[in-house]
């Protein structure tokens, strides 16, 4: 398939998608390459409520290529990243009913599913990895969420974005890079010619600064 392959699939899905039923704004153009958080949430809820395949195809068109890129950045080869990205999207379908926009944004929720799928894959491949199911917000039964808590969670994503933007660029950079994992920290050390211990202490400093900004924004 050529470079426009997945866009073509997404196009078809957009055409087939029942905008009226899910309340999606009709301003969403079929060539749109970015899903807003609200759009993604509504699509997920359509998948949960109606097993809506067209909504799922739109989510797939947006998230699968990003999941693959994310997983590659975390150290997986292209074919394994492809496989785990597909696996993640299958889990998105299966678990859609657990998605609660009062608990996490769509991208954050999908990220946690990918993280756990990655942990499972590494474990199956016999490499030391973490246990995925230990505490999985994507999988938690819905306890009642208070109005106050729902608002806090809704604001969290925006607060995190703002905080990342407010971090000094080099601190934001090292945090983003180290988010992809331990191996990446060694790569950062190698690429920048500084000791791994120095990278770790810079990550610590950046996290401290992030915490400060996040708490100030509350």
């Amino acid at each position: 398939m050529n470079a426009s392959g997945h866009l073509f699939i997404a196009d078809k899905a957009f055409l087939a998608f029942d905008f009226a039923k899910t309340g999606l704004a009709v301003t969403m153009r079929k060539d749109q390459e970015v899903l807003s958080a609200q759009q993604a949430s509504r699509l997920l809820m359509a998948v949960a409520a109606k097993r809506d395949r067209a909504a799922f195809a739109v989510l797939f068109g947006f998230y699968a290529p990003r999941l693959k890129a994310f997983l590659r950045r975390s150290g997986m080869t292209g074919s394994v990243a492809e496989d785990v990205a597909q696996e993640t999207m299958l889990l998105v379908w299966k678990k859609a009913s657990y998605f609660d926009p009062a608990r996490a944004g769509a991208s954050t929720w999908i990220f946690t599913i990918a993280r756990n799928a990655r942990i499972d894959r590494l474990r199956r491949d016999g490499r030391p990895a973490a246990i995925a199911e230990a505490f999985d917000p994507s999988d938690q039964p819905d306890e009642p969420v208070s109005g106050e808590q729902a608002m806090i969670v809704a604001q969290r994503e925006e607060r995190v974005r703002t905080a990342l933007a407010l971090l000094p660029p080099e601190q934001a950079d090292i945090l983003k890079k180290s988010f992809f994992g331990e191996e990446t920290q060694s790569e950062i050390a190698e690429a920048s010619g500084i000791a791994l211990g120095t990278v770790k202490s810079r990550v610590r400093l950046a996290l401290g600064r992030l915490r400060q900004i996040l708490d100030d924004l509350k």
Partner: protein
Amino acid sequence: MIKHHPSDETLFRYANGSLEPGPRIVVAVHVGGCAACAARIGEFEAVGGSLLHDIEPDQMDAGALDGVMARIEADEADHAAAAPARRLPRADVGIRLPQVLDDCGIGPWRWIGPGVRWSRVTLPDDDGANVMLLKVVAGRRLPEHTHVGNEYTHVLKGSFSDARGRYGPGDLDEADDEVQHQPIVDKEGECICIAAVEGQTKLRGFFGRLIQPLFGG
């Protein structure tokens, strides 16, 4: 009132999935009862969400969506539910364990020294992880020791103290290799903790040195 929490680095590694299985379950026990740490992890996971949303996309294989849709159809046609999860044996350790541990195997208490017992915790999909419950009688002083690698000890019942403070139910003690301490279990009653060490290295920490021979070290 929880006074001792995992470090931000640990919560960050929890959120990005790089914390090892043993420490991960101990941190999960803490987070299950600590709204502040759950919120912090939520923030760090939102960092992941933001990175995912903004990353330059890769090209998926041709037919990837069709393949996933076919698997969805196959799953839905196949009404047979997934095989029930393997039930691991669970000994009664005398306290109600946190829900997070529901799928874990729990071994019986075993004596490892005067006033100290341990029980092995087996993770459902990773029986190599070194996680254990520890039970120490009231007033018992433990040998002074340091650690190799981070050690995570979460108090389930009772309390212990060392030079850094007092650790009660809900507190998580994250001790790195620079911590040298001699914990004493408080006089009011026995203390039960869940503990894990980082790294595939042998257990040498808090109670680990006592237990090490039992793990085949």
